[in-house]
């Protein structure tokens, strides 16, 4: 499926390896802080995929929003939560739940990959030629989906107010 000959394929494989290993590290790292940093690296890998897919604006947005805002927010939260608390919870749970989770996740990933591989012959193996100009995304959002944009703005305002109210909650 993936030939290691063309340079773009090599870059894709490297990007996939970085993204997946960083995602695993984010969940398995002993220290929560390292996990958050690994999560940021995984997000940067996804941004690389967006560049590959001719979506430079999404890559920029991904880095600005996820790496710039979400990961930093997570880091601050980790600092606000007591240190020994975050460390003690890093171990795997007792009993068979770890194995069950692993089986479930593996089965899901293999099943979806299998379906994708079965459908493979019907799916295009090379992207159609012709690039997607960055400006077209802005035009489509502004011209065809203006109402969702307004709803999104309201939703963000409501969510941020809610987060503020929650964080200020007195005991």
């Amino acid at each position, binding site marked *: 499926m993936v030939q290691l000959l063309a340079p773009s394929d090599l870059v894709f494989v490297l990007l996939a390896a970085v993204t997946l290993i960083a995602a695993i590290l984010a969940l398995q790292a002993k220290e929560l802080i390292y996990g958050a940093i690994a999560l940021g690296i995984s997000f940067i890998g996804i941004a690389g995929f967006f560049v590959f897919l001719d979506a430079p604006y999404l890559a920029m947005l991904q880095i600005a929003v996820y790496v710039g805002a*979400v990961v930093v927010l997570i880091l601050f*939260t980790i600092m606000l939560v007591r240190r020994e608390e975050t460390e003690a*919870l890093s171990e795997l749970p007792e009993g068979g739940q770890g194995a069950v989770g*692993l089986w479930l996740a593996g089965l899901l990933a293999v099943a*979806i990959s299998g379906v994708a591989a079965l459908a493979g012959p019907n799916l295009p193996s090379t*992207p159609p030629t012709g690039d997607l100009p960055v400006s077209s995304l802005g035009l*489509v959002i502004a011209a065809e989906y203006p109402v969702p944009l307004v709803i999104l703005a309201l939703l963000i305002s409501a969510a941020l107010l809610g987060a503020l109210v929650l964080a200020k909650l007195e*005991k």
Partner: protein
Amino acid sequence: MVSLVSYLIVSAALLGIGVYGLTVKRNAIRILFAVEIIVNAANLNFAAFTRYLNPPQVSGQVIVFYSIAAAAMEAAVGLALILVAFRLNQSIDVRKLNKLKG
């Protein structure tokens, strides 16, 4: 060039990693990590499908745009909830957050 199936497989692997985190982890912050990973897997799928299946249109990218904004919002609210849970409970172990249990 890279085929569409490769993107789907990477995305499925990310989904698997996220589901593993959701089912196994006890730390609320790590569960939030897992949710973010799953959202990213979905975003990757949208971008890949829109690139390969209807090239002049960018509707998939529009969905990813909204999805990124919604996920960032969800992270902010989730972290505020975790802070409140920690303040009330002195713990972010999701197995200890059982005050509503009858």
